[in-house]
């Protein structure tokens, strides 16, 4: 049995969303995707704020929406679904406390109960004593927490959260994430959480759905998706390099990059398209003997397994050190700040990259 089962098609000029979403009762599904992929639109359809152009939305055994015909459209308040939108949209004329109570009252709580619960929720999101403030008198992160409390407090059949933890600092985000996790688990809510942070997806959801340009490009258990990203985007989310190539004679190859493909060698036949997935920190980096790209190419030995020449395109400072981005193929390399200083890298320079095939995972392309 599925709690939520939807096939959603929305047509807009220059954009088409066509996605299937399913969630078992009590299951939390994370939705990730690049900016503009259609995450908010998807949630908007489920909440009844965006009209369906084709498909259906089912919750439990109720048909909430169908289109194009017979056209059914259940009004948002009758869906038993609560949406926390990407813009929190706290009611500016109500205090933080009244904002939280609003959701509770809308779900039928009496005045007293709503007031008492709202107090509790304020405390839970760390805003004890700020209940009487208007949203305009709260900081961005405080507003975000009130909005989250307002949505969570309603404990609906299904909860839709659109980037619930943005504008929170690491520490507060951690606390709120734990609160959210506990609440979702305790109420056994079916929930869909759109997020940009793999940390949220892993911590909150059991399944991950990757949406790109309106289509689902990958779906599965969160850790599995992150470990075997099917697209560049998912690899970036997981913080991994992903290079597409093919397997020939037990070796994985992409242009002049060749790796000994251990288990990928069991692929049915030569020429299978396979992506190599590896962590940026697993890649070794060295200056080449020559100072210029053409010089480096001239000096380059013929293809060596696990080693290749690359050109630096960008250096990015990261908390752990420096991330070096190279082409072709596009590979990111992490190294410590000391090592980066020692190498004296700069965009445009040629470098020699090394990768132990054991550090790579080979994923056949779907």
């Amino acid at each position: 049995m599925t709690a939520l089962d939807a096939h959603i098609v929305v047509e807009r000029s220059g954009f088409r969303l066509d996605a299937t979403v399913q969630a078992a009762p009590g299951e939390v599904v994370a939705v990730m995707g690049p900016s503009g992929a259609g995450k908010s639109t998807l949630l908007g359809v489920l909440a009844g704020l965006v009209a369906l152009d084709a498909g259906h939305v089912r919750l439990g055994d109720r048909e909430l929406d169908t289109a194009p015909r017979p056209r059914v459209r259940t009004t948002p308040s009758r869906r038993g679904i609560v949406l926390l939108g990407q813009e929190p949209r706290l009611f500016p004329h109500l205090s933080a406390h009244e904002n939280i109570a609003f959701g509770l009252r809308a779900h039928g709580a009496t005045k007293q109960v709503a007031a008492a619960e709202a107090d509790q929720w304020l405390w839970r999101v760390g805003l004890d004593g700020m209940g009487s403030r208007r949203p305009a008198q709260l900081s961005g992160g405080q507003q975000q927490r009130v909005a989250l409390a307002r949505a969570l407090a309603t404990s609906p059949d299904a909860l839709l959260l659109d980037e619930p933890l943005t504008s929170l600092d690491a520490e507060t985000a951690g606390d709120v994430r734990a609160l959210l996790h506990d609440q979702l688990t305790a109420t056994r809510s079916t929930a869909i959480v759109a997020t940009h942070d793999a940390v949220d997806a892993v911590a909150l959801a059991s399944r991950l759905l990757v949406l790109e340009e309106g289509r689902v490009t990958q779906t599965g258990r969160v850790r599995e998706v992150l470990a075997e990203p099917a697209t560049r985007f998912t690899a970036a989310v997981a913080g991994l390099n992903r290079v597409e190539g093919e397997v020939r004679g037990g070796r994985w190859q992409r242009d002049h990059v060749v790796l000994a493909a251990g288990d990928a060698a069991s692929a049915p036949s030569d020429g299978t398209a396979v992506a190599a997935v590896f962590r940026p920190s697993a890649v070794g980096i060295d200056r080449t003997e020559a100072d210029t790209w053409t010089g480096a190419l001239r000096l380059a030995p013929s293809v060596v397994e696990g080693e290749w020449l690359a050109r630096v395109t960008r250096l990015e400072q990261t908390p752990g050190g420096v991330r070096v981005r190279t082409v072709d193929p596009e590979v990111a390399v992490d190294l410590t700040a000391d090592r980066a200083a020692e190498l004296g890298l700069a965009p445009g320079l040629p470098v020699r990259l090394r990768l132990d095939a054991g550090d790579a995972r080979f994923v056949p392309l779907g």
Partner: protein
Amino acid sequence: MGFAPRVLAIPAAIGLALLILPLTALVLRVQWSTLWQDITSPEALSALGLSLTTGLTATAVCVVLGVPLALLIARSRARTAAVLRALVTVPLVLPPMVGGVAMLFLFGRTSWLGGVLAEWGIRVPFTTGAVVLAQTFVALPFLVLALEGSLRTTGVGYEQAAAGLGAGRWTILGRVTLPLAAPGLIAGIVLCFARAVGEFGATALFAGNAPGVTQTMPLAIYTAFNGAGVSQGSAVALSLLLLVTAIGVLLLVRAWRPEAPR
């Protein structure tokens, strides 16, 4: 003046002066000797009472009919909204007297509707009900247009948020839509009540000028003005009475401002 250019204080002051100076000139001409007598005469008080009763009733009717109408227009597509707005604007342009004639033509005994009503024993014109009807007719557009402006400015974002939280339509209306449009609603109610209380032309024709039944303050002022010669003393006195009372009522309306945004 917030982020507005500061020189704008000059036209603002001129505007304010234009509105206030004539009233000052009026007050300066008040005959203080007869003022008390003028404003406490039984006719004056009965007219005032009638004005307040009918004015408030008409305002209530306007709210009941006008708020839905404003919502309808504000949430219609651009084209429909334009047509509806034009229809609502029409009675505004009409000199009120013509409005009164029009209502007489609609409800009078020579009309079809008037005939039907007469058969049921209902006579609309020349009753206190007619006063309320006339005031509603002239005041309704003000409420609708002022509120519609605010509703459109607010947009539907917060309504969506409320719907996303599972709030029903009535809850959204009462707790989100109207409070957020409160500045416009209050402006509308003020305009509406002021227009209803000051209404003269349509009432004079459609309801008549029967003291105690349909003679509201403006009609009493008109009668005093026309009848008692040109001393205008009592007309001015009555005007002041109307003014002070209306402002009093309006300040009460202002005081009621449940949840003002920002």
